[in-house]
């Protein structure tokens, strides 16, 4: 009887988005994608999607609540970056600190092409 009662009560209460998916599958997909690239601030190697720490659940709750309320994932991410800096996302925005990450591969590719060109030229002779 008490079990039944607690089930009825649970059904009546709003879903706890820290542990329960958004009923709308499209929105849940958006939230899941975003949560996978947000850093858990307690266990810093994990995303809030992977972590079982209370704080990660609290962050998932905020993300799902905002997305369920119709916010865009980009806006939710910006909201968190505004509070924690770009360290909170695994997909940091382009800035002077992250520029080498993006530019180094291009520079290395250029250097490789230049080296290859020199070698090929010599072979042809």
């Amino acid at each position, binding site marked *: 009887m008490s079990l039944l009662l607690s089930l009825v009560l649970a059904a009546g209460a709003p879903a706890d988005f820290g542990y329960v998916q958004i009923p709308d599958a499209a929105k849940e997909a958006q939230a899941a994608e975003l949560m996978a690239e947000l850093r858990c*601030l307690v266990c810093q190697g994990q995303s809030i999607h992977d972590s079982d720490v*209370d704080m990660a659940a609290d*962050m998932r709750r905020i993300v799902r609540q905002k997305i369920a309320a119709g916010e865009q994932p980009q806006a939710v991410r910006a909201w968190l*970056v*505004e509070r*924690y*800096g770009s360290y909170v996302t695994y997909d940091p925005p382009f800035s002077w600190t992250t520029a080498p990450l993006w530019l180094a591969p291009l520079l290395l590719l250029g250097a490789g092409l230049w080296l290859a060109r*020199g070698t090929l030229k010599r072979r042809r002779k």
Partner: protein
Amino acid sequence: MKRWLLWVPLLVFAVLMVIAGSRLLVPPQTVVKSALVGKPLPDFTLAPMVAGKPGVTRADFATGKPRLLNVFASWCVPCIAEAPHLMRLRQAGVEIDGIAIRDTPEAIGAFLARNGDPYARIGSDGQSQVQIGIGSSGVPETFVIDGRGRIAMQHIGDIREEDVPRLLQALEDAR
């Protein structure tokens, strides 16, 4: 091709190894600072945590006098360690408001009875919504809020004896 060019890859590799090696010696724990330091405290309202003490709202700040906003919990061990230093700050005339994270009135009551009660108000943040809202990533953390309601400083971790003068100075500067 010039002969010295042959050494360039080895040199680049050596530099990378030195960078990687020196990072290995640095402890991996990274504190995440709030990006809201220097900005106004966001709007929030927290219900009272214990009977006989009001909750905390944004309106309690920006009253012309700087205050400390202490994020704590009864289940947090460093919070016990910083309690005597918060009491000292209180005795020095500092006004302190608390945000209790994921806690119960009974546990907070017992915590205050055991470790002293420096708080003018204590708000209950059962799901860390306000904690995340102000860019705090753990307990304990202490924010200096200036008289205009702006976050002047964030202290991460427990307040130790040597932090007390620093916090008093920050409160003085935030006047």
